[in-house]
């Protein structure tokens, strides 16, 4: 209890979790943390440059630079502007959404295996989109984006209500169980709709394996505000996620309003994951794995984990997409397959590693 009181005092004073209590990361010192984040930013820039340079149609460095600075309407310009730039931008936007949403999910549920999928958010979004396509014949991204958000929000609300029933309110375990149940139920319904409607089936491939090549610049502009708003909400709950990590009783005694925190956090996840899913389809493991990498690098403070996720996750996603382009040339692998291949071993590692599993 003495330790807890000390912690409480430290927390009230600094809003920060003392490093000695929870273990630090590689870049958890003050200046080191900022320098590390800047370094990660450079890494993201390098990944984007690589993504704009790499592809089946050979464009030289000089041609790429002139295409970016002074496009004249040639083949290289078309490749750079209509293929590689939108593709890279999709990776950045979706990566930010998935990474930060994953961090918020893990903080909220205190579950190291949580990702944006854990609350049934992705399943709800996909189901709403499939229904929109099959029943209402909506095909454009800007048309079904709202269905994606609505489906995600309804799923989150349903899971939250179900998870709040009974004694103890909305505990992390009950939320995760309700999310898993809803995912299974809604996933079956999605499959049923696609089986009944064969014409929708052809349009559903994207909703099975995510890809960065679908969205165009107009689509990206349409979802960017949602991502931005989601980031603001996530930033607002960063401090409270730190106290939630100490357990509910502790969080309450530290003055965290649990219900408000949960509602804001879930809303942030709905916006971030919904927008990412709308432009890139379901992409596995990025939202799960990247927060762990960020935690290892910067320590347990969510106000640092989230910015690190916002930089690391797009780096991972963009590099995975570049890999998908070169691995089986001249064919290509969708980025969802690549992240699955890379992420699965990491997931097994997490499950086996007891220390992390007791986050």
């Amino acid at each position, binding site marked *: 209890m003495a330790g807890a009181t000390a912690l409480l005092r430290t927390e009230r004073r600094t809003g920060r979790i003392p490093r000695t209590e929870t273990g630090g990361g590689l870049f958890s010192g003050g200046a080191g943390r900022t320098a590390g984040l800047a370094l990660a930013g450079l890494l993201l820039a390098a990944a984007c440059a690589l993504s704009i340079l790499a592809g089946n149609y050979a464009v030289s460095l000089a041609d790429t630079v002139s295409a970016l600075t002074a496009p004249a309407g040639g083949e290289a310009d078309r490749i750079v502007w209509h293929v590689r730039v939108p593709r890279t931008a999709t990776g950045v936007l979706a990566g930010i959404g998935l990474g930060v949403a994953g961090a918020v999910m893990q903080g909220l549920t205190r579950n190291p295996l949580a990702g944006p999928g854990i609350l049934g958010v992705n399943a709800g979004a996909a189901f709403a989109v499939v229904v929109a396509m099959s029943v209402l014949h909506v095909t454009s991204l800007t048309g079904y984006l709202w269905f994606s958000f609505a489906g995600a929000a309804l799923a989150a609300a349903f899971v939250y209500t179900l998870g709040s029933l009974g004694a103890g309110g909305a505990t992390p375990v009950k939320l995760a169980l309700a999310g898993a149940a809803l995912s299974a139920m809604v996933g079956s319904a999605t499959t049923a709709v696609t089986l009944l409607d064969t014409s929708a089936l052809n*349009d559903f491939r994207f909703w099975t394996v995510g*890809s960065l090549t679908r969205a165009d610049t107009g689509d990206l502009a349409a979802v960017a505000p949602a991502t931005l708003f989601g980031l603001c909400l996530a930033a607002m709950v960063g401090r409270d996620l730190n106290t939630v990590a100490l357990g509910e009783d502790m969080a309450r005694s530290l003055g965290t309003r649990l219900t408000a925190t949960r509602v804001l956090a879930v809303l942030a996840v709905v916006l971030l994951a919904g927008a990412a899913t709308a432009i890139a389809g379901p992409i596995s493991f990025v939202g799960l794995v990247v927060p762990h990498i960020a935690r290892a690098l910067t320590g347990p403070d969510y106000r640092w984990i989230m910015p690190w996720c916002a930089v690391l996750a797009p780096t991972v996603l963009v590099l995975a997409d570049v890999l998908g382009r070169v691995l089986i040339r001249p064919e*290509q692998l969708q980025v969802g397959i690549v992240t699955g291949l890379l992420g699965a071993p990491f997931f097994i590692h997490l499950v086996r590693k007891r220390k992390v599993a007791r986050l």
Partner: protein
Amino acid sequence: MAVSPMTRASSCSPRTAFALAGVFLLAGCGAPAPERPAGEDAVTRTNCGIDVAVEEPPERVYAAYQPGIEVAHALGLSDRLVGTAFLDAEVLPAYADEQAEADYVPTLPSREGLLETEPDFVISGFNGFFAENSSDRSVGTRASLRELGVRSWILSPLCPSEDGLTDRAIDPASVTVDSVYRDLRDLGALFGAQDRAEQVIGDMRERIAAVEAQVEGAERPTVAIVAPDDDGGFRVAGGIDFSTRVIEHAGGTNAFADLTGKRNIEVGVEEIVERDPDVILTSTCCDAGMTEQDARSDVEAITSNPALEGVTAVAQGDVHPFLFADRAAGVRAAHSIELVASRIHPDLVEH
């Protein structure tokens, strides 16, 4: 005396045994038992490495996919069809009346659904129907059907390297129009429709030769068969797809002929720009009422893609509606070759 043929017949089918017994009853006592080793009457043809033997022409035929259904009609087996499934487009006009009479379901049957129709022979246009791990529904391997007395046939340009495998394992050497002729001849023999088969083969040969004569000596444009995917990628027809042969007979070259890993290859938009095909054909599919009119949206998706603006086919207005059904290995081949020739050599071949 009458018992001996029955006991001997235990090694052949009951039907033969009863037939033989009938012969002896008619012949009366004292007639000598003719020496007939088991299966002497059987007609045997090899299909995709499997011996298919029938004692007499099968009477209850199930035909799956466009090529299987059209081959059945072409050989005059329409009356024997107990079921047809999964058309990619309208059948050829010559078979429209027959197909209207046939039992048809738009999706493949399950194994139970197939067996419910009590077929004695199954013709499939694609091998996925018998694959153990198929994207479409599968009715089980051919060997497992044979155990139930159901013979089966895969149109041989799609022979998998082994029973139960999908079309990721097609022998490129089998992907020829000659394979289609061989199928017609073999099926004609199994069904006692040799004359009809020869007639169909003769007609196809004639029509294809006429096209080849018209395009002879002309430049051979590169042709890509392209299906836009909803994720921004494209599926193109690779070298082991029968359409590669259709394009060649029609006086062109498949721009993706060197990719022989599978029939449908997933590529990005850059690969199409890189290969710069002279002509692009869509690959629109799959509905029993589908016609070329339904391919317009696929043409639009390709021509309106800003990244493809500089591709020769797009720049010169040579993106044409085309049906997946016309890629199929079957009696449609002559029709497809005429159609593709009229698209890639409009000055030489009339549509």
